[in-house]
């Protein structure tokens, strides 16, 4: 990897790649480095681009890194990654995609991630997206995440679009069996003329299935964001969807909530709030000595933390 690629990996990965129990590093459309261990097996797909990750039953505290880096302007790829998590396994999966584009051609990475959680499995999935470069070619990321959760399993999905991504359309779909919990935390910051759309569909099929979806976003300058969520309760279940957005300059945010209770014991809540930074928040931080600009930054950083 050259220095730009090494720096991009750092932007999307908090931990050193080599600290992971297993990892797969993809650079410009090719897997360039991989590590497996006796409990976690990463295999390249034979019929299309991507990997299958198999985690054995009862694997404890496994850490898997799967960063993707694009520095070749004009490269467009769709990658299919499937994760099979064994019974009672407990893993953390850190994914991230960084694009550096100094040219005029668009660069695009579309990651299709499917998660199959066996009974009692626990997964924390963290995904960071980041774009940079001085070219006018767009940096485009369109992730699709599909989750199937067997009874007693739980999953937390943390997604963060840090900056510099021109277009993104994120689709997430999850089907939950009984006694499962799915927590989704999404954070997005857009600026310039960027556009970010996210769609969530969570189907609560099992008794005592629950989900908590939180989206916090900041749309600045001329950027546009759209948040669409659809939660369907087919059993005794609980869902809380929360969409909070700060708008600045000419930024636009649209939130489209949908909740559908098909069972008398389904308890589904949706909350949405969009607005500029409250004046009293700025004033409070200014009374502590921050300038108005510093106060605004502190509020946004806290909001997206």
């Amino acid at each position, binding site marked *: 990897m050259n220095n730009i690629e090494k720096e991009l990996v750092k932007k999307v990965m908090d931990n050193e790649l080599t600290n992971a129990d297993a990892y797969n590093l993809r650079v410009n459309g090719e897997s360039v480095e991989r590590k497996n261990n006796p409990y976690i097996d990463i295999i390249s797909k034979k019929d299309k681009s991507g990997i299958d990750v198999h985690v054995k039953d009862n694997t404890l505290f496994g850490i898997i890194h799967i960063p993707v880096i694009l520095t070749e302007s004009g490269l467009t790829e769709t990658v299919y990654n499937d994760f099979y998590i064994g019974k009672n396994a407990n893993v953390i999966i850190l994914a991230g995609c960084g694009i550096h584009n100094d040219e005029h051609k668009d660069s695009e990475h579309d990651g299709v991630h499917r998660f199959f959680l066996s009974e009692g499995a626990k997964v924390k999935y963290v995904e960071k997206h980041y774009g940079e470069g001085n070219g006018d070619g767009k940096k485009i990321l369109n992730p699709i995440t599909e989750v199937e959760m067997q009874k007693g399993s739980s999953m937390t999905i943390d997604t963060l679009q840090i900056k510099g991504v021109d277009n993104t359309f994120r689709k997430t779909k999850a089907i939950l069996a009984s006694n499962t919990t799915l927590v989704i935390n999404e954070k997005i910051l857009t600026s310039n003329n960027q556009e970010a759309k996210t769609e969530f569909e969570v189907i609560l099929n099992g008794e005592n299935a629950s989900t908590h979806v939180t989206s*916090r976003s900041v749309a600045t300058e001329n950027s546009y964001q759209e948040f669409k969520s659809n939660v369907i309760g087919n059993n005794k279940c609980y869902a809380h969807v929360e969409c*909070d957005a700060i708008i600045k300059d000419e930024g636009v945010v649209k939130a489209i909530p949908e909740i559908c209770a098909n069972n008398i014991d389904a308890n589904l809540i949706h909350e949405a709030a969009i607005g500029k930074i*409250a004046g*009293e*928040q700025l*004033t*409070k*931080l*200014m*009374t*502590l*000595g*921050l*300038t*108005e600009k510093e*106060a605004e930054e*502190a*509020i946004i950083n*806290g*909001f*997206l*933390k």
Partner: protein
Amino acid sequence: MLELQNISFERNNKKILNNINLRLDENKFYVITGPNGSGKSTLAKIIMGIEKPDTGRIIFNGTDITNITIDERAKLGIGFAFQQPVRFKGITVYDLLKIATKEELTKQQACLILSKVGLCANEYIDREVNGSLSGGELKRIEIATVLACHPKLTIFDEPEAGIDLWSFQNLTQVFKQIQKEYKGINLVISHQERILNIADEIILIEQGNITKRGNKNMMLDTIFTHEVCSKGGVACE
């Protein structure tokens, strides 16, 4: 020393403050009291720079601060505790204390600051400053953030507002401690007898005018026999 010279403030054709002249000296604990709508909070906000007076000058330790911003006043050593503490999303108690101290702050140091307002740091330090905290907890955190700045002039705008009597009784102890430990100028806007009782000097504002000021003993007699506080100062709200 803080000096207000000929401060007037009018909104919607209503005179809120009418040519206020006031001098506050170092190492004194002042309480401004008076009926609702008399202009007390407006005066506090004018000192902090949150509101701008129509006329008059504000001199703080020899510097004319009338036209400088809120943050510049904060840097000169003026602190302000809000009547309704502001809530944030994502900003923790620790974050706010770090902003207030403007330097690297260890959790141990943050713990010391919180203990001054009677809060156990371990329970609060990583909590978001949002609606999950009670009115009394938010008030204490608000005061802690102001004390963390080590202001030379500290303004507390109606610390009793929005909290129950039990929480307020505990908060009174905090103010007694502030009076002992924090020198400089302490200025509290309050209706509460317990707060009036710890004042070195009480200033009564009615209809935008300072109508009386004096030491605690003289003023308490005046106020509690005065129609502005017919309920004995406990329940003016």
